[in-house]
């Protein structure tokens, strides 16, 4: 067994810890740093719920050792909001109902983030390819794609977030049972 002192820049802040070499990055983030927005969803590197950004690239944090990130830069879902302002991707998933249970959502957003930082206007096929390593059991993916494309439009300055209270799409429908 070996232990290593590592220093990783996480969401812009230098974080130091002494960890076992076999500690997975996802467990370092969740258990040592308390950043539980990154999720564990499978045993087989398939689901992508653990996706974070390492030096600006989307990676599956369940298939990496924390020691490999010593001296590198990691960004998690917690690092998207700045000064209480949501990132356009986070706004997009609200605007376009990109989640139901929300378990895959941080991974979806972190998979999409490098795409939007490189490509200002990805088409549907490009977005679907970017998230092709991320599984969702709830939504059927269409709303996720819409959310990401909304975020791209917001980053181009073409749309703005609506006031949550006034969001017309999600007002309750008046039906025979009153909801």
């Amino acid at each position, binding site marked *: *067994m*070996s232990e*290593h002192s590592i220093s990783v820049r996480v969401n812009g802040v230098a974080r130091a*810890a*002494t*960890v*076992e*070499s*076999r*500690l*997975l990055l996802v*467990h*370092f983030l969740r*258990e*040592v740093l*308390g950043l539980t927005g990154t999720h564990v969803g499978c*045993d*087989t*590197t*398939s689901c*992508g719920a653990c*996706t974070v950004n*390492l030096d600006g*690239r*989307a*990676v*599956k944090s*369940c*298939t*990496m*050792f924390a*020691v*490999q990130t010593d001296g590198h830069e990691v960004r998690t879902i917690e690092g998207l909001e700045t000064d209480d302002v949501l990132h356009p991707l986070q706004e997009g998933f609200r605007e376009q109902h990109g989640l139901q249970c929300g378990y895959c959502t941080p991974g979806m957003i972190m*998979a999409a983030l490098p795409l939007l930082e490189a490509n200002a206007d990805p088409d549907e096929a490009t977005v679907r*390819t*970017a998230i*092709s*390593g*991320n599984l969702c059991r709830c939504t059927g993916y269409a709303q996720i794609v819409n959310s990401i494309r909304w975020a791209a439009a917001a980053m181009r300055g073409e749309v703005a977030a609506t006031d949550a209270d006034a969001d017309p799409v999600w007002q309750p429908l008046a039906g025979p049972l009153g909801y």
Partner: protein
Amino acid sequence: MSQWVTGADMYPAAFTYHAPESVGEAVELLSQLGPGAKLLAGGASLIPLMKLRLVELTDVVDLGRIKGLDAIEPGDGHVRIGAMVRQADLLRSPVARSLALLGDACSVIADPSVRNVGTIGGNLSHGDPANDHPAIMLALDARLHARGPAGERTIAAADFNVDLLQVALEPDEVLVGIEVPTPTAGQGTAYVKFERQVGDFALAAAAAVITLDGGRVSRARVTFTNLAPTPVRSPAIEAALLGCEPDAASIAEATHALVEIDPWSDLRATADVKRAMARAAAERAIRLAVERARGGVES
């Protein structure tokens, strides 16, 4: 600040981690550490095995800190691809356009996130016939460069794959680079993979490297992924293609020579299904390679 993680959160068995800064250091570590030590490239093949404890290592030697193993360098009649080149970077590089089958393969290996960490060297050294690069390198007659205690040596792709999960590297050797020949005039290449879903291994896949001279096939290489413990060539299909003016009918005819290969069955498909899919993959790959050869796509 730091909370200790114990017990169930520790998926892999405990090991000692080494991060050498040079290939020489890595070779020395492998020589000293013995059979319980393995190299870590991107980790896309190794770490999933460690998490399931299908492999328990005493030592892991991480190649990730060594500089200079991730370059793609054109040379005299060849391109040298560093073993640590990530699949995503290979996909974006000019060599993936000039040798289109490399671009085809990289775009169907795993998924975009895994491609950001997985390496061509790891994909080849793992010795898994379900990985895509072994059949590609066999079709290209690539030359693999390995460095060990005695220095550097070259291994032909045809000699590299020995058996299931077994390659021709000594336990104290590091694969440092892969040399692929630049396309010759009239050459077209393609890789066609059948998979159940994105990120899956192939049920069957075929690589085709076809050269046309005066409209006729002057050279053909057709290889397959996941039909056997190592990637396999089909000399019978190649012979059937030689000299013919390739059209849909003659290509389909040629692929029936696949009968010489008896595929294994695996979790994904029985031998019968693999046989049918391999033939279809070969047909599509050859047709695409011929189209690219005619179109002068690769140069």
